């Protein structure tokens, strides 16, 4: 979930536009007294802004729908990121939707500044003869003028740890993006907790997966740096344990085994109730805490998420 600060409703105060794993676009309206409650952004037909796949709250299950342009068929993509931008330079904010699968779609605003009327279908963003796509499952795109040519370019992180740049070679109001260029290569490490290989560093060196990026002039030197939130896995060096520590390790391993068994039971279910989803989240956190403590005793691969600065030279 990645917020964008923008004056969406043109009232002079910054709002937040956010895409979440639910698959729909959210607005958190700002006001002079603070932020209001989040609301789902609607299209010109009063429907949620989404792609093909989404979490259906009424049915409490993952669901699919079709919002393809007339006569076309989009893939069943899952919207995870939303950016408000004046794409066609007509003075109002359109919506760029990022799909987890790596593709991008546009919802044009047919309304006015502050009174949006978004089209009811998802228009794929072209790139040459194909569609714009980044590798490694995208997290969230940012539109910034990376190469200082007056046009917004697209910088995007990915779940594989890579960060990509698609330069805008179009004209004002008609963006045209080139193929993704690698700004940061993929991390080359397993994505999930406890699944590290033998070739791990002894300490965190860089984010290697789940990379969310912001391109900002962090140090005020006039060029854009990268802020990257991401996960990394490392393996601390082995050490000798005291008798008390060995006992604690035994207890922790037993607790871990029990929590893993409970989680496997929930994972095996085709659908889960609200209560079961809450239990799953609790177990996930418990396993993370157990793993964190075990890592202080055992040289097992350890994963954690940090925020990193890639300062541009």
């Amino acid at each position, binding site marked *: 979930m990645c917020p964008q600060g923008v004056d969406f409703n043109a009232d002079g105060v910054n709002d*937040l536009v956010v895409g979440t794993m639910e698959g729909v676009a959210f607005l958190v309206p700002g006001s002079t007294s603070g932020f209001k409650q989040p609301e789902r952004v609607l299209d010109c037909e009063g429907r949620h802004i989404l792609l093909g796949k989404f979490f259906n709250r009424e049915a409490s299950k993952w669901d699919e729908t079709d919002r393809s342009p007339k006569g076309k068929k989009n893939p069943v993509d899952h919207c995870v990121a939303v950016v408000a931008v004046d794409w066609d330079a007509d003075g109002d904010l359109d919506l760029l939707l990022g799909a987890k699968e790596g593709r991008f779609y546009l919802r044009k605003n047919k309304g006015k500044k502050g009174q949006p009327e978004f089209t009811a279908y998802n228009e794929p963003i072209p790139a040459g003869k194909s569609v714009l796509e980044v590798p490694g499952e995208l997290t969230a795109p940012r539109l910034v003028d990376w190469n200082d040519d007056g046009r917004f370019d697209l910088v995007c992180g990915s779940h594989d740890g890579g960060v990509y740049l698609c330069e805008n070679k179009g004209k004002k109001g008609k963006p045209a993006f080139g193929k993704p260029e690698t700004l940061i290569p993929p991390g080359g490490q397993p994505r999930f907790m406890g699944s590290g290989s033998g070739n791990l*560093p002894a300490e965190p060196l860089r984010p290697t997966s789940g990379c969310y990026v912001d391109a900002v002039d962090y140090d005020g030197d006039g060029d854009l740096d990268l802020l990257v939130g991401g996960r990394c896995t490392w393996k601390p060096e082995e050490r000798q344990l005291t008798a008390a520590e060995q006992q604690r390790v035994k207890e922790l391993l037993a607790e871990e085994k029990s929590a893993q068994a409970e989680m496997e039971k929930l994972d095996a279910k085709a659908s889960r109730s609200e209560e079961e989803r809450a239990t799953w989240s609790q177990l996930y956190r418990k396993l993370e805490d157990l793993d964190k403590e075990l890592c202080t005793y055992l040289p097992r691969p350890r994963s954690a998420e940090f925020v990193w600065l890639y300062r541009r030279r």
Partner: protein
Amino acid sequence: MKGIMVAAVAALVSTTIALERVSWAGGARKAEFEAPVRLLADGKFLNEVENMLYPSPVLLDVDSDGQRELVCGDLWGRLRVYENVGEEGDTTWGPAVKLQSEGKDLELPNW
């Protein structure tokens, strides 16, 4: 043995840095980055205490004080705000505070 390990780690660091010196076709400009560093908040590695999953950082002025704060979203739909508590020209992030909405922690439904 220790010397070999130090050399191996140094080689790994050097490879990592080299991989991140990347240029792209079509222009003389290069995107070269220094080796990544982990940000600190309140004197600890950011997220060491918060334990966010999939932290998504962005610099925003969320309280309209004319200064950018570091804002991080997470998988659970929450947003944390870090104020810059450094002296002028120095960036030092303070402790995380959850972004509020109408007196409560702001939470977006994630799924």
